[in-house]
């Protein structure tokens, strides 16, 4: 397939709110299972090893009119749960066997209870990630949580999950993350070779298809951007942060890039990039223990993970430095306590490191970008006109 065709396929799949690709996959063979997970991170390896496909449920974006969902939420709650409830009530999620709600905030936590009340899926699991990072304490607790998830899945399809199968799945997702990081590395050097809009679609499509297939797509994308394509433009290089859960609409991502920025790193779909580096037997010979250790020691920084000592601020600055960013865009969903409480702390760190930034709020169904375009444009111009260019060495 040509790269344009691949990207078009990803475009279609990433916003297929019926999840028909995944549902067809399930029908192809007996005892396959679909597990939907809410943002941000979920170790999809578990589902893969148990003859299943984990699919990301990332809201309905600006692709679905919300009618019922608004009746379930007060105006001062973010938008993503409305979209998810709308999908659930309209039957879009029928055929998905179970649902995982990672412990990222009170809204997602309570959404798990709403799914219970509405009796959606054969199991509903609020996955309590440890906020204690010691191996013996947080790790033991987390491994229990993972075993619980596995038992819920195997109760449905009777799958026997061996260590070997888990390692096989771990390797496939290691490969997936490696390829994604390679793409980001190239994009950092040659951001004009792949727009953020295209990359976003490619990554988001990976949330609804088997990892084997996604790895092939990523390899093709990598091949294509390894070639010298496109022309550099006079844009600044930015890292976007704060958008880890409710996703910005594509229009917003395009607006940032059209207003004079190359997005060279972001936290849009950070679940697919959560663990940094590979999960290997160096972590442990036991696959669940290895997944747990990787989580405890090599998670990305995120507003949903407890961290003191200003580690998050330092991580953001170091990411920006590593990516040779000219500035940072704080883009957080409206009413998102985790992202919005992080922002002042992170911004303080940026101030101390002479990193320029702007911030704004959005919602997954934001339709007007004029103000943001002006703000981003002014930011880009000010950096281009007044700042020393970042030395590319």
């Amino acid at each position: 397939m040509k790269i344009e065709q691949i990207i078009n396929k990803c475009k279609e799949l990433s916003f297929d709110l019926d999840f028909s690709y995944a549902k067809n996959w399930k029908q192809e063979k007996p005892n396959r299972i679909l597990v939907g997970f809410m943002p941000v991170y979920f170790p999809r390896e578990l589902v893969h090893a148990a003859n299943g496909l984990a699919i990301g449920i990332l809201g309905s974006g600006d692709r679905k009119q919300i009618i019922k969902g608004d009746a379930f939420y007060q105006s001062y709650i973010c938008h993503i749960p409305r979209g998810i409830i709308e999908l659930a009530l309209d039957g879009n999620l029928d055929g998905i066997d179970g649902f995982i709600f990672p412990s990222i905030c009170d809204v997602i936590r309570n959404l798990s209870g709403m799914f219970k009340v509405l009796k959606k899926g054969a199991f509903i699991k609020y996955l309590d990630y440890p906020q204690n990072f010691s191996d013996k304490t947080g790790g033991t607790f987390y491994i229990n949580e993972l075993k619980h998830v596995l038992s819920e899945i195997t109760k449905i399809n009777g799958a026997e999950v061996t260590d070997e199968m888990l390692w096989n799945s771990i390797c496939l997702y290691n490969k997936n993350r490696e390829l994604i990081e390679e793409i980001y590395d190239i994009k950092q050097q040659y951001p004009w070779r792949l727009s953020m809009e295209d990359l976003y679609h490619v990554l988001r499509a990976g949330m609804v298809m088997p990892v084997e297939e996604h790895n092939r797509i990523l390899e093709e994308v990598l091949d294509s951007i390894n070639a010298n394509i496109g022309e550099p433009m006079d844009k600044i290089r930015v890292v976007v942060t704060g958008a880890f859960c409710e996703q910005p609409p594509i229009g917003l991502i395009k607006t940032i890039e059209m207003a004079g920025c190359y997005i060279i790193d972001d936290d849009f779909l950070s679940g697919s990039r959560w663990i940094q580096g590979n999960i290997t037997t160096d972590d442990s010979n036991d696959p669940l223990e290895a997944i747990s250790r990787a989580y405890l020691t090599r998670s990305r920084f995120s507003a949903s993970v407890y961290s003191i000592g200003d580690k998050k601020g330092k991580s953001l600055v170091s990411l920006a430095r590593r990516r040779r960013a000219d500035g940072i865009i704080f883009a957080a969903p409206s009413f998102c306590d985790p992202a919005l409480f992080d922002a002042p702390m992170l911004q303080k760190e940026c101030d101390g490191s002479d990193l320029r930034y702007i911030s704004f709020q959005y919602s997954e169904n934001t339709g007007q970008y004029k103000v943001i375009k002006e703000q981003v444009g002014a930011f880009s111009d000010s950096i281009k006109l007044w700042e020393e260019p970042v030395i590319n060495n």
Partner: protein
Amino acid sequence: MAAEVIKEKSMILQKEMIAKLFDDLSSAKDTGKKVVYTFVPGNLSELIHAFDMLPVYPEINALQSGMRKQSGSYIRDAEKFGFSEDVCTYVKCDIGMMLNGNIGPTGKKLPDPDLLLLSYTGCFTFMKWFENLEQLYPGVPVAMIHTPYQEGGKITPEMTEYMVKQLREDVIPKMEKVSGKKYDETKLKHILEDAAKTEDLIVKIFDTTKNSPSPIDAYFAGVYYIGPINIGFRGTPESVEYYTELYREILERVRLGLGPVTPEGEVTERYRLVVEGPPNWTSFREFWKLFYDHGAVIVASSYTKVGGLYDDGFRHDSTRPLESLSEYCMNCYTNLNLPQRISHLKKCVTDYRADGLLVNSIKSCNSFSAGQLLMMRAIEEDMEIPVGFIESDLVDPRYFSYSNIKNRLDSYFQMLEQRKIITKEIKQNIPAQTGI
């Protein structure tokens, strides 16, 4: 209504206890007492006492600022500092107060913390709150204990074990270091015995609303009653004394057939309600008046259980000290899953023979508010009782719209009234049961 409210002995006792705590806090740096900042839900006050340290509760400061009409400017200062208008105003109020010198409710400066104890129960925002506090107090040790959520509707042995390990490996060693004292389990056990006595008493107190008329308002007065148990006195002899006296006074009201006391005297009970959600603090009196003017008495509320839920039998247990501290944390109201919260509210409606349920949805508080509309619907459908809905905020005066709330409450009370008339008519038209 009676013209004058006479201060009961319990009120005087409470006042003295709180005044002493704030006195101790203001002199802590001189007396060498160590100060722990922590939160109400899932508070480990018994453990803090076991190390002879003093607790400070940022939420209590925030609500006090709200009642003293200072929260508005604190919140604006925090917003100027960089916090979004969208986020929890308790946090912003507290941070605004710190930015303004950290003057406590008695007008004296609160001491800086020696330990930040993050026992975050039932709310993620606590975690963000402490991450921010840690930046405001750099270098102060932080002890964190992660309380697992009751996602499966129960506390499993693994959850308890996880918490106990955190207490042993992180919280207690940090407390030992900060206080300079060894962990003394015998001392903790004695404190827990008093905690259990206090819990027995508070359950009995809130159970008196089963009487008609209810002798107390379990929400508007309830928030005063839970003061001592929530702000660190739970395991103290003073608290046993306070609650014994309070219970005695309430039983006396029951004996005399008296209704609840309000700022304007005694109220004649017309409607019995269960309330879900915290109150508004900035216009607390006006808010309360909107209820008692209509004879609406709150016979049970979920908010009085955020600092601990004891109705279902949980008690701190001196024979299992760390286990029971952990179970206490996991059992606070907002750490229950939604189906549990629904059954709890339904049980309250039934047990306290309420005429309806009212939800005060708080803008700041996702922990409470997300899902409340579905909870309401489920309860309404299941119990066929009138369910009302109002919106306000804890401490942000910009989100207390008196007329809006009044209009909604007026219609709600009308609904309750009509229902009373209909029920009465039905009862009159049904021939008397002859018995079998």
